[in-house]
């Protein structure tokens, strides 16, 4: 069953700028974990923001984003807000800044509950305690009473994840959720994320530039480049046999372990000498981008 259907979505920020998203189409099924891979500036975050309805107001958007059958692009803010945090949630890249510095994290989290569920402060607080415990925030009461700056990066990201899964959403968009964390913490947070996604049975749009992370997390992957989806398919298939030159480059540069001693490290441009070439190549490929829909 299709949960999220992005169809022919384009976003630009003013007439004089290159479109940030260029006729993007993408499907996410219920429970599916789709990785979205691309370099910085490729439009990953814009896509996430477009789905969440959080584009800046100078953004110009065409196309449709259907979530559970409703077109989000035409949804008024109030109705959309009831959806956000309830069915559709997001985990951000920067745990350092994603939380209100002037409010205790327990209160911020319980707000998420009370915004969408009719319940008392005590009930919300109990729920927060439950989820905090689940995501490994310990001791719960102390952490809930802490301000964000008093927590470590990993703890903060756990809070953000807790807030994201609080209301059993059907789709969680993760925008580079572990990039800002150090390697050790990364692994545990990722494991936690998977666990929580499984528990609430949520689909996930997982945005990353890290192919390893994507391959461990996701069933399928879409590659975005220059605002376009250039390749889509199962994770193994795309990573083992990339078809688009950009994907080939991405895969090669990620696999530096395959480079022999004395050999020059590959760079993306080896696979597409200029960005114009990439553009040209991607345009040669059929539009919308090659899609292998297995399910």
């Amino acid at each position, binding site marked *: 069953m299709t949960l999220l259907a992005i169809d022919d979505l384009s976003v630009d920020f003013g007439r004089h700028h290159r479109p940030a998203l260029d006729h993007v189409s993408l499907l996410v099924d219920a429970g599916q974990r789709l990785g979205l891979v691309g370099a910085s500036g490729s439009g990953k975050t814009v896509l996430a923001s477009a789905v969440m309805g959080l584009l800046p107001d100078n953004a110009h958007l065409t196309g449709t984003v259907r979530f559970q059958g409703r077109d989000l692009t035409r949804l008024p803010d109030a109705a959309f807000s009831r959806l956000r945090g309830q069915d559709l949630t997001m985990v951000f890249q920067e745990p350092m800044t994603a939380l209100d510095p002037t409010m205790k994290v327990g209160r911020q989290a319980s707000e998420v509950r009370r915004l969408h569920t009719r319940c008392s402060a005590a009930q919300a607080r109990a729920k927060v305690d439950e989820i905090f415990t689940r995501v490994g925030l310990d001791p719960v009461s102390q952490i809930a009473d802490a301000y964000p700056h008093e927590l470590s990066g990993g703890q903060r990201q756990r809070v953000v994840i807790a*807030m994201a899964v609080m209301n059993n959403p059907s789709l969680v968009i993760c925008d580079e959720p572990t990039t800002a964390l150090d390697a050790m913490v990364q692994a545990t947070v990722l494991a936690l994320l998977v666990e929580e996604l499984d528990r609430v049975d949520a689909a996930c749009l997982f945005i990353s530039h890290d192919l390893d992370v994507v391959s461990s997390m996701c069933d399928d992957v879409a590659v975005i480049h220059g605002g376009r989806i250039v390749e889509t398919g199962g994770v193994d298939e795309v990573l083992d046999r990339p078809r688009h030159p950009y994907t080939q480059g991405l895969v090669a540069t990620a696999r530096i372990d395959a480079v022999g001693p004395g050999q020059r490290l590959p760079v993306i441009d080896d696979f597409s000498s200029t960005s114009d070439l990439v553009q040209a190549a991607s345009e040669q490929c059929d539009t919308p981008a090659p899609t292998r829909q297995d399910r």
Partner: protein
Amino acid sequence: MPLLRAAARRLAIFIGTVVVASIVIFLIVQALPGDVAQTTLGMGATADAVAALRERWGLDQPLAVRYGQWLVGMLHGDFGSSYITGASVVSQMAPRLAVTGWLVGFSVPLSLLVAWPLGLVAAMFRRRWPGAVVNALSHIGLAIPVFFVGTVATIIFAVNLGWFPANGYVTLGTSVSRWASHLVLPVASIVVVQACFLARYVRAGFIDVLTEDYYRTARAVGWTRWRGLVRHGTRNMATSLVTVVGVQIASLLVGAILVEQVFVLPGLGTMLIQAVQARDLVVVQDVVMLLVFAVLLLNFVIDMVYMAIDPRLARGGRG
């Protein structure tokens, strides 16, 4: 406890600054040319009479002694006596302070109350016409001198419509209703200008919030644009606004003098001008010291408030 130690350190600095300020003020005021004895005696002063009066008022003592007396007196709550009337300065200052206090006390919260929604709208709609309108209005309001606003308000609401008295002051003790009606126009005049000023800071503060990740988070968990901004923006915006409001109160304490002049209110500013004209240096010194002390105290309080509002600052303190 680091918070306590930071507070203690600031308190020490505050006290030191106040003492230095008192020396500076004393020297400035003593350096003013003119002589209270002569000024008081007026056109008919003779040299003997002036000398006698100077001696009676202790003006013939050395500077350091007079400074010491003044400082010690102030610590005991004795601000000295007016040369001219002999009345204690504290008893003269208290009613004046009350007038200025009411002016500032009403106009600052009211300005904030007006500025907050204006700034919110201006930030949210900064690219559309409501934002442009609020922005233009605040620019214009800020460009009109407050005494001009006051004069025009007097003509419209006192002279033509007769809703409020044109000027003057009635103490709270005399009649609450007349006290209030005498304050409406002066407070409103200040609010018009101050609200425009503050609205711009509120707007800037909210725009900053709009770019913050935590605002995006708030939206992502289901806050609507407005409620998210109000809920998570106000407190964060307030941290940048506290300084501005502090500066506002400080400048109003003295700046109220313009409004006091327009509306013939017996506030501190009017008292200062009269004392300077009469060369009643004890009064000048005390009023200036009071005003400076108020501002320094305000700075100190702002620092403390900062620590309270923004828990991150408890450790480092404000730059």
